[in-house]
């Protein structure tokens, strides 16, 4: 096979990789995209964001139907046909995957289904089903992503001990499910399985679920979990697991005592590790940090000037939209534009019930860093829209610089928080002040009003809530 010559090779076809390939092609570069999975889209499309949201949305109805009874609309107990649910989910992935493949084709991006291995800073060896080949490139973008961590003590080779990848396949609805790790993946999948009827127990080593989110935003999710899950154990630790017939025997420590329990299935969601092995990284060579992520500068450039890294493999928050933004930054750096990742606001969304979303500075971060801020909160109990939705378990808060009154951070918990947070991102990126947000008319009755009203809370004159002024004027 003759070596392929290309201006840019992108290794990895996830939301970072294909975004980079497409943008570079749109800018006129000759681009080759190498992906080992037959379907483009990476973890996000195949084993992450998309399938989990499909399942969350499908199963949400179960809980909503139950809730509906108190409003006088009563449904019969739902019948769950797992194979149809799986097929529907798969059809969503199929549609999206095909869409990406078509978009690649239309742009003239050469997509190669192969494993890639760097031979040098200008050559990538590819292993395809048809044999070995080589790609000579001027620039490379490494976007190989991450995978769920599976610590050795849990890796018994037993399929009943799952990571998110297997859990999303929903082979069965286990009677009992232990989730190790109360981060966003554990909490989201816990929500899916709890809706389907599993007895879910979450074990979290820290003193709170959803690490990184402010405590007041986590509270409604915790309230839901206490109701829908069998148990959420904080400051708890799983120390041992073993196979016990068709179950898993789990030894854990909680409240100072050891427990031994049997679970039908266990989900390990204790974080993600970079896919840095067997890539030929040492042949480029690329410098990695102590956790194995590739080190990059503010233009996503590695220590080897013509090689860039984006998305999960470059470390930081492991979110698809961060990868997509880094894709644009890297491509612009390659085409000689002055791009930079500094001061980019990356929102975070957790699709639990209710959803949690935040962006910019959080209240706890401000406290930890000693940054002077004012926090304005608007509880959803005062929102007409939240009441009509019967979802008053929400809160919108703004983190404001007391001097300039600029909005430094936005946090939302509640129904549809993931959709609402985008306005917060815009406000922070634009350097908007609380006045700007308060002055913009928001449609009534919508949940978006809570953003405007929380800005008004800051000034002490929100219409739908009353705040007694503590500082005499």
């Amino acid at each position, binding site marked *: 096979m003759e070596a392929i010559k290309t*201006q840019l090779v992108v290794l990895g076809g996830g939301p970072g990789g294909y975004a980079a390939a497409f943008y570079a092609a749109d800018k*006129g*570069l000759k681009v080759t995209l190498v992906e080992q999975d037959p379907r483009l889209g990476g973890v996000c499309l195949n084993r992450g964001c998309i399938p989990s949201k499909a399942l969350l949305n499908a199963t949400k109805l179960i809980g909503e139907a139950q809730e509906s009874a108190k409003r006088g609309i009563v449904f019969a107990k739902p019948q769950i046909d797992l194979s149809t649910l799986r097929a529907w989910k798969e059809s969503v992935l199929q549609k999206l995957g095909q869409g990406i493949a078509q978009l690649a084709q239309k742009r003239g991006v050469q997509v190669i289904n192969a494993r890639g291995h760097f031979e040098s800073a200008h050559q990538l060896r590819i292993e395809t089903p048809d044999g070995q080949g080589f790609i000579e490139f*001027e*620039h490379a973008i490494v976007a190989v992503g991450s995978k769920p961590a599976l610590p050795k003590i849990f890796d018994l080779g037993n399929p009943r001990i799952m990571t998110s990848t297997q859990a999303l396949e929903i082979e069965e609805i286990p009677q009992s499910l232990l989730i190790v790790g109360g981060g966003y993946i554990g909490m989201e999948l816990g929500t899916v399985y709890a809706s389907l009827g599993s007895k879910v127990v979450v074990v979290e080593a820290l003193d709170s679920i959803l690490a990184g989110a402010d405590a007041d935003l986590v509270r409604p999710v915790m309230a839901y979990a206490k109701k829908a899950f069998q148990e959420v154990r904080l400051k708890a630790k799983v120390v041992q697991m073993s196979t016990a017939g068709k179950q898993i025997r789990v030894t854990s420590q909680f409240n100072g005592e050891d427990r031994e329990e049997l679970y039908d299935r266990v989900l390990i969601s204790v974080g993600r590790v970079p896919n840095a092995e067997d890539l030929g990284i040492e042949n480029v060579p690329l410098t990695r940090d102590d956790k194995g992520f590739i080190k990059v*500068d*503010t*233009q996503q*450039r590695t220590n080897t*000037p*013509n090689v860039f890294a984006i998305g999960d493999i470059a470390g930081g928050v492991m979110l698809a939209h961060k990868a997509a933004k880094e894709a644009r930054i890297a491509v612009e*750096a*390659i*085409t*000689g*534009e*002055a*791009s*930079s990742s500094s*001061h980019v606001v990356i929102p975070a969304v957790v699709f639990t019930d209710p959803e949690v979303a935040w962006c910019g500075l959080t209240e706890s971060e401000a406290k930890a860093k000693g940054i002077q801020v004012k926090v304005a909160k608007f509880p959803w109990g005062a929102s007409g829209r939240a009441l009509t939705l019967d979802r008053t378990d929400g809160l919108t808060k703004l983190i404001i*610089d007391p001097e*300039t*009154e*600029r909005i430094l951070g936005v946090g939302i918990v509640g129904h549809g928080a993931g959709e609402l947070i985008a306005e917060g991102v815009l406000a922070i*990126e*634009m*350097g*908007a*002040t609380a*006045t*700007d947000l308060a002055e913009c008319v928001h449609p009534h009755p919508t949940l978006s009003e809570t953003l405007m009203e929380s800005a008004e809370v800051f000034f002490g004159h929100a219409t739908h809530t009353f705040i007694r002024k503590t500082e005499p004027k």
Partner: protein
Amino acid sequence: MDVKLPKLGEGSETGVVVSILVKVGDAVTKGQTLLELENEKSVAPIPSTASGIIQRVNVKEGDKVGVGSVLISVAVDGESNAPTPSAPSSPLASESIQRTEVSHTAPKYAQEPTPPIAVDPSHGAIINPSPAAAPSVRKIARELGIDLTQIRGTESGGRIVMADLRAHIDRLQKLAFAPKAIPGRGQSTPAESIDFAQWGIVTRKPLTTLRKVISRRMCENWTSIPHVTQFDEFDITPLLALRKEFAPAYEAKGARLTLTPLIIKALISTLKQHPIFNASIDEVLEEVVLKHYYHVGIAVDTEAGLFVPVIRDADTKSLLELSRDLETLATKARDRKISAEELKGGTFTISNQGAIGGSHFTPIVNKPEVAILGLGRGTLKPTVVEKRIEARTLLPVALSYDHRLIDGGSAARFIVDLQHNLSNLTPADLKLA
């Protein structure tokens, strides 16, 4: 014991080692100058923080060092001579940051980089540490190589909008096309070396670092400031009589009452009447900075060259304190024991050549100050007093000022008021408490 680079003063975190005065094995005493460091403002001696033997010199001439860098290790008297482990002077954080931001190679299809707008690097003050601006504005700023931390936003919350960016670019362009200060070394093509030996015997020796700094500063001040020098002669006959009367009392307190502290007293009153003489021009922001403090620089002639130590808050000090300060600073300057801090922050400078002799001269304004007062030696001259000729002591006075900020009329009024304030000094002013 490690001698680390102390904080040199506001906004000055780094310096270049210009000379090292000690070597390993030398015995040093506490306070003895170990090396000299140059930063944007001055050449400062770095004193030893302890007495002992020099164990290690961690820097060499020409090294750029930051605050906290270990410069020299001294085995303190009485301590063991075992070398103490010490980190080598760390490379500057700012340098390494810059390095990562520099793009390594220009790709073939990269656009031609925009030529950077020439800016005097000394105008790099951060005035907006966390600038708020829309992503589109930030993008353009990046493309033009403009640092938003140097722009003050005009919108609510200090947000920088396109108009602010444009105004900033305008300012930079004006600066770039303004007559450039000619640096005393580097950049400009060096003049050809002339072989003076062809016409006779010569001795050559390298310019000292201090001389190079003086040279650069003088060139910059002379070329960037449109100077005007206003001359006058002050009749100081009564003042000298007053001085003579009170000098013994000062002597008894261990201080020498010279003419200079008396001039400072009168000067402070005059500066308060004419605040524009106690000001600076902020060329970047196009603002006048009027200072409500009075730190008077005193030009001191030393063997090594010119030093201008600063008397802080001269307006709050008594004549006795001023006399003492003058003497201390002059001695320190001559012994090269003056700290960098003591050379900074002056608001107005006095250059008094009276002790040496001479008459009028045209002093060069000490940037960023806007005026300087040059004094010659008072001499007896036939003077008309009440229509009769009398022998009076006249003091040659020369006021150089920055005509960008100060007009001739203001300078004339300043001189008149200064003379008035000087002749208005009374025994009550000189009397010791």
